[in-house]
């Protein structure tokens, strides 16, 4: 044997292997898993990993989209095409339905991200889902930095950061009592750059707005918001056509674009590697409201 007879995985192979192990543990230990799928890049990567985990068998669980009603049309089209291609069952929990029948009220700032929690929890209860895959990553935000891979939620869907199960080796504990469920985060250890490198390596197709395109935008609180049904410029806000792309996709009324010439996945990887601003800092108005915005939402049962 040669002298360099040491077998090492690249960091992307390592992350992929860990995620596949996590996804398979869930299928083995739970009755009714579901995967949260928005068409956003993290959920796309998570679904890609699920496809690989069970090949040549099909993905053995449905996907759930918590729909704010403020969607980018190209993301909805991507979602439907993906579900069709993989033969998945899609469940939709609609924030709009809740607003229409008065169970939820529109917020003064028009943002619907925080309104997703109740429809999500109701869908979990109605379908008796006991494991819910989410695309959250620990590098996104400091409340997420302390999240477990298997994160137990009580019957109110709440996260108790003070009372989390220790997580040792790769021995995940999925035990839960009736009414409780477990949120599972297979991408816990991935960074934004890892996700993009993996998208490049695996040639994963994404909704087109992740790449540079011309769009009518206006600036608000240092973010570029798209002009459209869900976000209209105020009097002093100037509309311009700029070459932009999105680093995250969410509620159109509070997800900002960034100026970018990156038209290919290689361009995006180079841009992400050189960036000096976190993706949530750059693009999410709701996370900039307070230092603990995410912590508060997570405790209530948010993703």
């Amino acid at each position: 044997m040669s002298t360099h007879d040491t077998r090492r995985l690249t960091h992307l192979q390592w992350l992929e292997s860990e995620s596949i192990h996590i996804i398979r543990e869930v299928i083995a230990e739970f009755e009714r898993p579901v995967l949260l799928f928005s068409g956003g890049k993290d959920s796309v990567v998570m679904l890609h990993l699920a496809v690989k985990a069970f090949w040549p068998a099909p993905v053995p669980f449905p996907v759930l989209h918590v729909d704010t009603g403020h969607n980018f049309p190209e993301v909805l089209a991507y979602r439907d095409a993906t579900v069709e291609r993989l033969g998945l069952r899609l469940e939709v929990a609609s924030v709009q339905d809740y607003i229409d029948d008065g169970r939820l009220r529109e917020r003064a700032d028009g943002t619907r991200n925080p309104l997703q929690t109740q429809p999500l929890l109701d869908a979990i209860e109605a379908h008796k889902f006991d494991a819910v895959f989410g695309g959250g990553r620990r590098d996104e935000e400091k409340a997420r930095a302390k999240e477990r891979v298997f994160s137990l939620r009580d019957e109110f869907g709440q996260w108790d950061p003070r009372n989390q199960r220790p997580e040792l080796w790769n021995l995940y504990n999925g035990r839960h009592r009736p009414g409780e469920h477990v949120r599972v985060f297979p991408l816990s250890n991935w960074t934004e750059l890892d996700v993009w490198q993996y998208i490049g390596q695996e040639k994963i197709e994404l909704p087109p707005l992740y790449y540079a395109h011309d769009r009518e935008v206006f600036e608000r609180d240092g973010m570029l918001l798209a002009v459209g049904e869900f976000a209209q410029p105020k009097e002093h806000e100037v509309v311009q056509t700029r070459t932009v792309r999105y680093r995250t996709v969410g509620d159109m009324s509070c997800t900002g674009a960034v100026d970018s010439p990156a038209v290919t996945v290689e361009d995006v990887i180079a841009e992400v590697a050189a960036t000096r601003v976190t993706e949530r800092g750059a693009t999410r108005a709701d996370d900039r409201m307070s230092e603990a915005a995410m912590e508060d939402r997570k405790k209530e049962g948010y993703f």
Partner: protein
Amino acid sequence: MSTTLLRLATAGSVDDGKSTLVGRLLFDSKSVLADQFDAVERVSRDRGMATADLALLTDGLRSEREQGITIDVAYRYFATAERAFILADCPGHVQYTRNTVTGASTADVVVLLVDVRKGLQEQTSRHLAVSSLLRVPHVVVVVNKIDLVDYDQATYEGVEAQVQAAAQRLGLTDVTTVPVSALAGDNVVTKSDRTPWYEGPSLLEHLEQLSPAGEPQSEPLRFPVQLVIRPQSAAEDRFRDYRGYAGQIASGLVRPGDPVTVLPSGRTSTVEAIDTADGELAEAHAPQSVTLRLTDDIDISRGDLVVTSRSVPGLTQDIDGTVAWLADHRLTPRTKVLLKHGTRTVQAMVVAIGGRLDLDTARLTPAESLELNDIGHVSLRLAAPIPAEEYLHSRATGAFLLIDPQDGGTLAAGMVGDALLASVEPLDA
């Protein structure tokens, strides 16, 4: 681009500069972005500090800030051109056994901090003992605040000698020390010219060179079966009769043609193929997730362990092991628990408690029960036999969890065998 990955755990108490060190690693490796740094500068100013306090980069949850302590392990990420790092940042004071055991369980290297002015403290010895128990392959002791002793070589060497003596006593073979000022940045990312007498690498250079845990080519194949993949009617015709065993290789490597034994049944077969969604592999090794096909149609299900027939572990229903007790209520003999080992969960009973480890003296003392954060020796009787191997020889197949059968909580981290006794010998040194 092809980089490798290294997992590290940092442990220490509030005043030893751990947060500053972690902040420095993140900041100097450019893993801290402008908006995060702006927030730190703003808060530092509000608190009346002249410069940005890098320790704030690792500030935790609001519920923790309110109490002025960090309670839980936080995971951080940084990368260099050669390597991606996953850092488990383990707070020291509260729940320190729970946190350091958690962090150390997955770590390739534990990074401990010592204040050069204080030398080796009790808590550092405890962290060294935990690193030894958990068989962490490498330990780095950062001798911090070297600026406060004017970069004095003799002071550093005194601490280095204390650390090496403690390491030797605990049976730790790979312990490196580095003189550092986390605050000033000396020897963290780049070598400092203020310590010309120090010939080793900077902390980050050292972390870039270390080999991760495990040498697959020198370990026997251990493959816990997670699930059986049988597409049946859902698949294309060519997969109608497909039957594969999915899992993550825990140790060793596997090739088509290898003779294997399935435990606990003891049935033997031969590896026909190693499948992945990307195609068949000519070889796979730990920690790859793959699907194995065997030449014989034998009964295999989740919880079984596929091993190389050249090295077959024995089965046992009686386990002696070391446990770190992580539950609020005490452990007493006759307690019924669930034991999770690999992908198998079996009922078990704690038959006897063999003693409690005094981490300060590294000695086993008699004990009737174990309390929260105690580390002790227990004897377990299992309802079914499992292929348990000594943790000392196999981290991947010697580890287990104890789980509360009623509320499902994780009660303990366990290691098969006398890891405890091995690590505290000699008892009368």
